[in-house]
């Protein structure tokens, strides 16, 4: 009963540390040691494909007879794929991304996963975001990295989206923002602001939910004021498609361009849980890929035109791939092993790793050759200049994804 007795005394949440958002503490990036990876103001944009992207219809082994056999209704015809080499091609909706191959700005990491994969959306997403398979996950891999580099970061969200686990653990709470115009506090009487701000500060007697609200409020009011000052009309160098993901990436570009040293961004697009009628070269899944490709391509070109090409790394991931064989509903059930895309001026162009062998499925699922934490390790060590051991606990050899 000691357990319960202990519980019945009021316990507290772990405090989350500093209260001032990072970009208020420093307006320009401190110049790190020029020889160090990550020294050149490297930017990381994580794009989360929520729902379990069907990797096999994203990066397609179009020559493999088993591919056509497993997927009679949803296979993409070989003559329609965007060929990367003579056996692997990208889905035709990824035309924009395929074009980045010519610019040596796209790296396709094949067969990424982890041992004993969970096929629960929520558990697997937590594993990817925390970069851990521990039972209780409270901190994210990006949040932990921010402990080391402590640069300004943003979660660029659709209005109603919760902040991801991936950003938990950062020294200051990473602000979620969906538009600069909506990111301001309206008051009937400006003189009330002092009372509001002081109430947000007054905590501290005990960490807990109230303290959490106060820290969120304080960060938000301060960030909001700063953003209103820097907000100006942003004219992209290339047109962005009229999609949700494109508008979020455009806001990332604006925040990068605002010159407040923001370097880490997190965005999501949902809808990848294609259990039924997912389509083939056209259809529901094709439309999702089209949104991904169009938005990322425009973002890359916009930043490249502003001279940020060498600074940019954008990385996509999804919580799992899908079953190799289609189901009876012309869709696919939850699977494992899937590709990741890395976009930027410094990536190793083309394919990395081997495509999962369709003849050697594990419980009907694609096997993995590269642990996703090896990709994270490369991004941490070679891009952000963060010790991957601090974030991932060590043991993950960085995969060669940079040129």
């Amino acid at each position, binding site marked *: 009963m000691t357990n319960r007795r202990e519980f019945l005394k009021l316990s507290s949440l772990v405090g989350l540390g500093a209260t001032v958002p990072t970009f208020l503490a420093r307006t320009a990036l401190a110049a790190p040691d020029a020889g160090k990876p990550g020294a050149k103001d490297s930017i990381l944009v994580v794009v989360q494909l929520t729902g379990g992207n069907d990797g096999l219809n994203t990066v397609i082994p179009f020559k493999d007879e088993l591919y056509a056999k497993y997927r009679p209704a949803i296979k993409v015809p070989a003559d329609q794929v965007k060929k990367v080499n003579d056996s692997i091609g990208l889905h035709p909706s990824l035309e924009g991304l395929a074009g980045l191959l010519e610019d040596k700005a796209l790296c396709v990491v094949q067969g990424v996963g982890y041992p004993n994969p969970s096929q629960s959306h929520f558990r697997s997403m937590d594993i990817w975001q925390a970069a851990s398979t521990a039972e209780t996950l409270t901190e994210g891999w990006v949040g932990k990295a921010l402990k080391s580099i402590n640069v300004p970061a943003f979660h660029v969200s659709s209005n109603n989206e919760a902040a991801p686990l991936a950003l938990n653990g950062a020294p200051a709470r990473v602000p979620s923002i969906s538009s600069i115009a909506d990111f301001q506090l309206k*008051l009937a009487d400006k003189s009330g602001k002092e009372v509001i701000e002081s109430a947000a500060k007054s905590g501290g007697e005990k960490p807990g939910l109230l303290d959490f609200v106060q820290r969120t409020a304080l960060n938000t009011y301060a960030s909001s004021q700063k953003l209103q000052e820097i907000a100006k009309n942003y004219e992209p160098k290339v047109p962005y498609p009229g999609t949700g993901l494109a508008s979020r990436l455009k806001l990332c570009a604006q925040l990068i361009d605002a010159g407040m040293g923001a370097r880490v961004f997190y965005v999501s697009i949902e809808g990848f849980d294609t259990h039924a009628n997912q389509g083939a070269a056209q259809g529901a899944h094709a439309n999702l890929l089209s949104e991904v490709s169009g938005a990322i391509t425009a973002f890359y070109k916009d930043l490249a035109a502003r001279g940020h090409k060498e600074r940019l790394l954008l990385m996509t991931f999804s919580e799992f791939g899908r079953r190799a064989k289609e189901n009876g509903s012309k869709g696919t059930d939850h699977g494992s092993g899937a590709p990741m895309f890395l976009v930027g001026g410094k990536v190793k162009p083309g394919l990395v790793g081997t495509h999962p062998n369709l003849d050697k499925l594990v419980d009907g699922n694609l096997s993995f050759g590269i642990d996703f934490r090896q990709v994270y390790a490369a991004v941490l060590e070679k891009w952000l200049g963060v010790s991957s051991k601090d974030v991932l606990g060590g043991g993950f050899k960085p995969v060669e994804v940079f040129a």
Partner: protein
Amino acid sequence: MAKTIEPQRVWEPYVPDATNPWDLKKVGHVYRRAAFGASWADLQEGVKLGPQGLVDKLLKGGEASPLYDAETEAFLNSAAKKFNDGAQAAGWWLYRMLHGGHPLREKITLFWHNHFATSNAKVLNAGYMVGQYDLMYRCALGNFAEHLQAMSKDPAMMVWLDTVLSKKGQPNENYARELMELFSLGIGNYTEKDIREGARAFTGWEIQNGKFQNNTAQFDSGEKTVLGKTGNWKGEDIVRICLEQRACPRFIVGKLYRFLISEAETPPADLIEPLAKQFANGYDFGKLVETVLRSNLFFSAHAYRSRIKAPVDHVLGMARALEARMGTQNNALNLTTSLENMGQNVFHPPSVKGWDGGQTWLNGQTLLFRQNLALDMCRRPAGYQQPATAFAVAQAHGMKSDEELAGFFLDLFLQGDVPEETRKKVCDYAKSARTQKVPSYWTKQDVAEHRVISLCHLVMTLPEFQLD
């Protein structure tokens, strides 16, 4: 609020005493958790009723609010179905939560909506969504085993999790997976094989003319082994087998704990166990809710302000306190859009896991949406020559002086429970606001209203107001 409780008395009914008296704070707490907030009259009445009387009243349900209009409700409901409009359906439900006669039942229905989280974003049939609501409302405080069986055959659910597409030889695993992972057992209490075998039992389940129908030609009648039981199981058997697992009552009780007691703590197993045992014996969910709402734990510091308000609670709580009206007329609140911005669009949960809740509700953007909506709600309803809601409610209850107004809003929204320093700042502000410069063309009424709006908004932006 009591900070320590004898372990054996945790789930026993709370009886007020000198160290843990019945007061305005506890009335506010009950109304936040077991309803959608309180009006000034609710708070005053609650103090008189005492804990037993107040919980009795909420469990029983009663008269709809004076602002309820049956015609409005019927109109919203029929419009939702007629035009297949998910936003109308959401508006209709919010209307029922805000003005209907049984807020506790609505609240528990919302619990079930978060549990069986189904989104019209995929179902695309407002009639099915309203039908699923009807099922959840009917079963809200009833038998969970019956509820789970009926939910498995609910048309909105069958579309949402692809049961309708699952055929003999080609089972779709979506429903079987979420049945185990999210609806009954929780992760770690089943295997991937249980899901694959279980999925075969739901083949041939179809919707005909808007109703469940079993198409035996598409049913896989073969033997299946699920959770250690082997037989020629039908879908109903799989649901029954899940209900027979010891993990099931624990899982459901754990979720209710989070909903009614605290998000700040994961309760230890031996705290949950007595309730799980009670619940396993007959799956009477109403009794479970009642036990929790009357308990010492519910009226302790462990439960008090130990959740972040969900957007629905935040918004409807403001509306109830301000005695604001929601309806079809143009002076009505349009709450559906606001709630969508804040992350809780009913009938449109983000995934089958529902809303994560807790700290995920609040980030920079959603906090600003909350604070800005609070201001809009204090102001004059659009398009009507009526006084600002904050001003009207203060006047209706006879509050005039600066002290009265500051005290009234602190009591109305926070039952006076703020640090002394905050109280002083709010009171000082109330005085200083009298000397504010205002545009010369403002009428006396404009000035008076503006002052009350600012003060009311200030109280609603206090951090304590974000806590449930």
